[in-house]
């Protein structure tokens, strides 16, 4: 495998944290559609909020594998916490760290890395989902900065983030080259978050529309060069997709662990149902697919860590496969639990609802296939 002894030690530690601290709230946040505030503080204390950022900027940087293990293990217990971390670290913090000026890093990162505040990433719009280049949000150049108008949707941490990266057009020229990235703070005049979405799963995570209504952002809040927004978020997503893949993997593992335990305990026809071949083979397929997904996810993490410029194909493969495995495994776990799998005493039905997002967020499975197909075509040119 790809992990060291230190990684596996860290896994045990973060698993213990997830089970003891997050686990008791996983069902409650699903029911109440609300994330308990004190859990963000607990995750911060554990060092989970600055995993992609150097100490110099308040971060608690770790290697990619350690970060991925953290998302995997947290998601194994609580999908909502998993996506909060994935969106915060990969999409919220990392772009500032990777593309920001020294001044921007020093100004914005400490608050969201170890300051206990969350970050968000506003890319998708009602009319620009898979077609992210169709962004309509517009940043008009004015004296000292930009006046922004537009709407973003499905923004994870949308209502809870203190700092938000978003994309907007800075010129009327069609195409991706007129898209730029900006940083905005919650509370800025003209910026507001819509109502909390009522979702199928990941109900602890706060998902909202973001509205810009003549919102002024200064020249200093432009992230990188004007017109480089599209290129930036493609890179951001390469990394982000590995964390969504880790979520799919963690949710699959969580459901699998419950299913194995149940199958060994549940007696029907005078024996444990795990003794029936139909159930045993299901478990075998689940285990094999989880392991295959883990290899793809860890391989992508290793490529990112090695500093390879683009690893789009491998990251898309990891996300595509791990999210589909997540869907399959959580569903099979429900089937193994029978009626109990459909009820909410066990976590598997929640995990099945949670994991469906992994096939949709940060590029649908269709987009991952597009990315993979394009890479393959280039390779044989």
């Amino acid at each position, binding site marked *: 495998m790809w992990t060291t002894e230190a990684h596996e030690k860290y896994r045990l530690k973060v698993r213990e944290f997830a089970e003891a601290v997050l686990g008791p709230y996983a069902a409650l946040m699903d*029911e109440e559609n609300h994330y308990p505030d004190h859990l963000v503080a607990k995750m911060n204390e554990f060092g989970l909020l600055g995993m992609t950022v150097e100490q110099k900027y308040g971060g608690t940087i770790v290697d990619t594998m350690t970060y991925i293990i953290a998302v995997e293990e947290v998601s194994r217990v609580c999908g909502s916490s998993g996506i909060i971390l994935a969106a915060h670290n990969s999409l919220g913090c990392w772009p500032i760290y990777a593309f920001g000026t020294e001044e921007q890093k020093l100004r914005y990162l400490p608050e969201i890395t170890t300051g206990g505040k969350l970050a968000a990433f506003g890319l*998708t719009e009602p*009319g*620009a*989902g*898979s*077609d992210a280049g*169709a962004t309509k949000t517009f940043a008009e150049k004015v004296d000292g900065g930009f006046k922004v108008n537009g709407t973003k*949707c*499905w923004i994870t941490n949308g209502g809870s983030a203190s700092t938000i990266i978003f994309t907007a057009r800075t010129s009327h020229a069609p195409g991706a080259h007129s898209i730029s990235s900006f940083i905005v703070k919650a509370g800025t005049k003209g910026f507001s978050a819509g109502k909390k*979405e*009522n*979702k*199928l*799963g990941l109900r602890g995570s706060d998902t909202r529309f973001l509205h810009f209504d003549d919102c002024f952002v200064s020249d200093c809040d432009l992230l990188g060069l004007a017109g480089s927004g599209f290129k930036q978020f493609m890179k951001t997503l390469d990394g982000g997709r590995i964390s969504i893949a880790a979520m799919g993997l963690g949710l699959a593992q969580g459901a699998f662990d419950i299913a194995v335990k149940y199958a060994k305990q549940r*007696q*029907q*026809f*005078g024996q444990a149902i795990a003794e*029936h071949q*139909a*159930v045993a083979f299901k478990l075998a397929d689940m285990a094999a697919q989880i392991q295959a997904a883990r290899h793809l996810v860890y391989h992508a993490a290793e490529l990112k860590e090695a500093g390879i410029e683009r690893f789009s194909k491998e990251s898309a493969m990891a996300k595509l496969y791990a999210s589909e495995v997540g*869907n399959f495994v959580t*569903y099979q776990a*429900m*089937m193994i639990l*029978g*009626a109990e*799998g*459909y*009820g*909410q*005493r066990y976590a598997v*039905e929640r995990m*099945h*609802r949670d994991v*469906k*997002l992994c*096939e*949709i*967020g940060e590029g*649908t*499975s*269709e987009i991952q*296939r597009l990315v993979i197909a394009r890479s393959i075509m280039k390779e044989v040119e």
Partner: protein
Amino acid sequence: MDFELGEDQILMRDAARDFAEKKLMPIAEKMDEEEKVPPEIYKELGELGYFGMLLPEKYGGLDLDTLSYACAMEELARGSAAVMLGLSVHNSLCCKAILDWGSDCLKDKYLPRMATGEVLGAYCLSEPGSGTDAGSLTCQAIEKDGHFILNGTKSWVTSAGFADLFVVFVSTERSLGPKGISCLLVEKGAKGLELGAKEKKMGLKPSDTRQVMFADCEVPVSNLIGERNQGFKIALSLLDGGRIGIASQAVGIAQAAFEEAYKYAHERIQFEQPIANFQAIQFKLADMALKIEAARLLTYSAAWKKDRIGREASKYCSMAKLFASEAANWVTNQAVQIHGGYGYVKEYAVERYFRDARVTEIYEGTSEAQRMVIFRNLGKK
């Protein structure tokens, strides 16, 4: 061979479709959120005869053939799977238990009021320790002074919270195992009958599912359905009709999800064109339509056979239920996928279809139980 539905079937199908579109679809989202069905819906269904679909006219029923029944149930499920479920249990399990196996006295006493919906039935077979292995049930009835004294717990009882009459399977001769099971009628309000809390489920939220507990509950011996120790045979005889109901339900949910996805794919513009222009979406829709058509034909065929070859149709009823429920799961998952982010929130009906469809593979025999039935019937003529 004639693949056209007859006049009777078309009449039932169109009437049910009309009711579903006018009365159920507009409130399906609200019913899901509030987890209840407005009483006037049941009243109207009662006036239209939907509580006595399989009862002869002399008891006030519609005396439908099984195929007409399947057509009606599919349409009702397309409108609301939860409302349809209550009808399925009432018609195919409770009314039929009394009609096919009850004494004239019981028939006269209950069936006319069941046909109107005045008396609603619930069916108590599963227990915490006895699901797929139904023959191992332990709920016990001991005869004493003209009464049976019931003790034990039934689980996953549909409509339990508002049912008037419970069809209960109990062990009357423990040493005989499945051959020592009897079927009893217990009225709501019987002393010693208690209801558990409403189960929290993934979907079918308006349907009221509970445990039903008996603690020294007294039932007159005259409430015995069929003969003593004939209960397991009765339960098995009812399964075929129940499974046709669930197969129809699965087809109805899948059809509804398909229609939403088809509509959305033509409305949603990405990359400057409707996403229905993309082959990846077209082929998904083609596969969805194909699976629904195959499921519907298997269901029609099983219903048609049931009226002609009786219990020899078991294999076909299980095939229809297994195939249709797997198809519904696949189709609803694809419908969410086609909707992208919009499929993950409750404003769009596909989110509900996804949750509702999952249980069709679990109740009235899991997919594993259907495969057992199919296998056991292979090689039989």
